C-alpha cells in the first residue's frame, strides 16, 4: 500500500507533501488554524484542493468519490449522526472485542444517538470508519474528549489495525500521550508549508 500526497494545497491550506506506506502512522502538529483539518478534508476529497493524491498509484480524481472515501476514511473532530439509532450508522456492526477495547458496551449499539456522550460518539465514530476497512485512516483530534486510559486504548487499536491490515493512518493531535505512543512520522505544519520527517 502506498499513499502519496504531492503539493496538496487549498484556500486555507499551505502546500503539503508526504508519502506513507503500509504500517505508517503520521502525526500532524501545528498551531490551530494552520490548516490541519483542511488537510484531512482535502485528503478525503471533501474540500476543493490542488495537487496530486494517489492511493496505490491510482489518482484520487480517477476514483469515484464514494469509493475513495471508503478507502481513505476520515473521522472529523465533530462526528455527524444522521439517524436516531446508533446501529443505523454502521454498514457492518463492530466486533465485540473492539467495543470492549474502547470501553463501550454492546447495548450501546441499540441506544439512540441522543443519549451518548461526546466521548462515546467519538469512539463509535472511529469504529464505524474502521468497519469500512479503509486503507488510509484520517483522524482529527480523536482523543480530544477521552481520558488517559481511553486515549491509550484508542491509539493501540488504531496501531493494531494499521499493522494487521497493512493500512496507514494520519493522526492530528495535541495529545502528548498519543503522540509518543504513535508517531512513526511527524508532519509539522506552519503557515508557509509543512515539514515531513
Amino acid at each position, binding site marked *: 500500500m502506498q499513499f502519496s500526497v504531492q503539493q496538496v494545497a487549498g484556500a486555507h491550506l499551505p502546500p503539503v507533501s508526504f508519502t506513507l506506506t503500509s504500517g505508517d502512522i503520521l502525526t500532524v502538529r501545528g498551531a490551530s488554524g494552520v490548516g490541519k483539518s483542511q488537510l484531512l478534508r482535502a485528503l*478525503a*476529497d*471533501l*474540500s*476543493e484542493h490542488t495537487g496530486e493524491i494517489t492511493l496505490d498509484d491510482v489518482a484520487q*480524481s480517477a476514483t469515484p*468519490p*464514494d*469509493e475513495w*472515501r*471508503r478507502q481513505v*476514511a*476520515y*473521522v*472529523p473532530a*465533530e*462526528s*455527524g*449522526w*444522521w439517524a436516531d439509532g446508533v446501529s443505523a*450508522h454502521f*454498514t457492518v456492526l463492530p466486533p465485540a472485542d473492539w467495543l470492549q477495547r474502547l470501553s463501550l458496551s454492546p447495548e450501546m449499539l441499540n441506544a439512540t444517538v441522543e443519549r451518548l456522550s461526546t466521548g462515546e460518539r467519538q469512539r463509535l465514530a472511529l469504529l*464505524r*470508519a474502521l468497519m*469500512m476497512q479503509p486503507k488510509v485512516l484520517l483522524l482529527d483530534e480523536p482523543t480530544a474528549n477521552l481520558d488517559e486510559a481511553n486515549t491509550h486504548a484508542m491509539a493501540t487499536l488504531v496501531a493494531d489495525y494499521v499493522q494487521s491490515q497493512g493500512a496507514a493512518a494520519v493522526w492530528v493531535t495535541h495529545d502528548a500521550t498519543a503522540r509518543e505512543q504513535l508517531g512513526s512520522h511527524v508532519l509539522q505544519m506552519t503557515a508557509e508549508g509543512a515539514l515531513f520527517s
Partner: protein
Amino acid sequence: MNIQILSVFDLVLAGLLVLALGGVQLLLGLGLLRSLVWGSVRMVLQLLLVGMVLKSLFAVANLGWITLMAAVMLLLAGYEVTARQKRPIKGWRGYGIGLASMGVTAAIITLFTLTVIIQPQPWYTPQYAIPLLGMILGNTMTGIGLALNHLTQTAWSSRNQIEARLLMGQTARTATRELRADALRAGLIPTLNMLAAAGLISLPGMMTGQILAGAPPMEAVRYQILIMLLITAATGFGSMLAVHLGSLRLFDARDRLRLDRLGS
C-alpha cells in the same frame, strides 16, 4: 342573474375599512399604517394595470401578444421564487432553477389543458389561457419557493450530518434522500391543505367568481375541480424538478457538499 356593477364609490368605502384599520394600528403604536396603505395602493395599481392589459389582449386575441404576456408572468414569478429564499443558490442558476422548473411544468400543463381538456376556439383564447396560466403559476411559484427554501436551508444547517454520510461512502444522492423527500413535502403542504379545505372551509375564488357571474353552481364546481387537479399536478411536478435541479447544484462532480454556492 346579472352581476351587480361596482362603482368607484363602492371601492372607496371598502378602502375606508383598511384606513380605519391603519388608524387603529397608529393609535396603538404598531406602526403598520405605511405598509398597509402602500400595499393597498400597490395592489390597486397592479390590478388596474392588468385590467387594462387584459382588455386590450381580449380585443386583439393575438397569439404573439398572449405569449408575451405569459412570458412576463413567468419571469415575475421566477423573481418571486428567488426573492423569498433565505439561502438562495447564488448566481444566474438560482433564478434559472426556479424559472425552469416553473416554466416547463406550467407550460406543459396549460397547453395540455387548453388543447385537450377545455378546447376553446381558438385554443389560445385569452379569456381561458391567461387566468388558467395565472392560477397554475401562482400556486407552483409558492410550492417551488417553499421546496427550494427547505432544501437549501436544511442543507446549510445539517452540513455535519450530510458530510458524515459522504464520509461513510454514501453518494450525494443517497446522503440527501430524506432531505429531498422532506423538501418536496414542504413544497406540497399548501396544496394538500388546499385540497383538504376545498369547499368545506374555503369557497375557492374561481368558483365564487363564476357563481357571482351567474354560472350554475355545478358548472362552477366542475371548473374548480379541474383547476385544483391541475394545480396539484403542476405544483408536484414543478417542486420535484426544482428539488432535483437544486440538489444537483448543492454538490460538485466529486460529490462534495458546496455550501459556498448558497448566498446568505
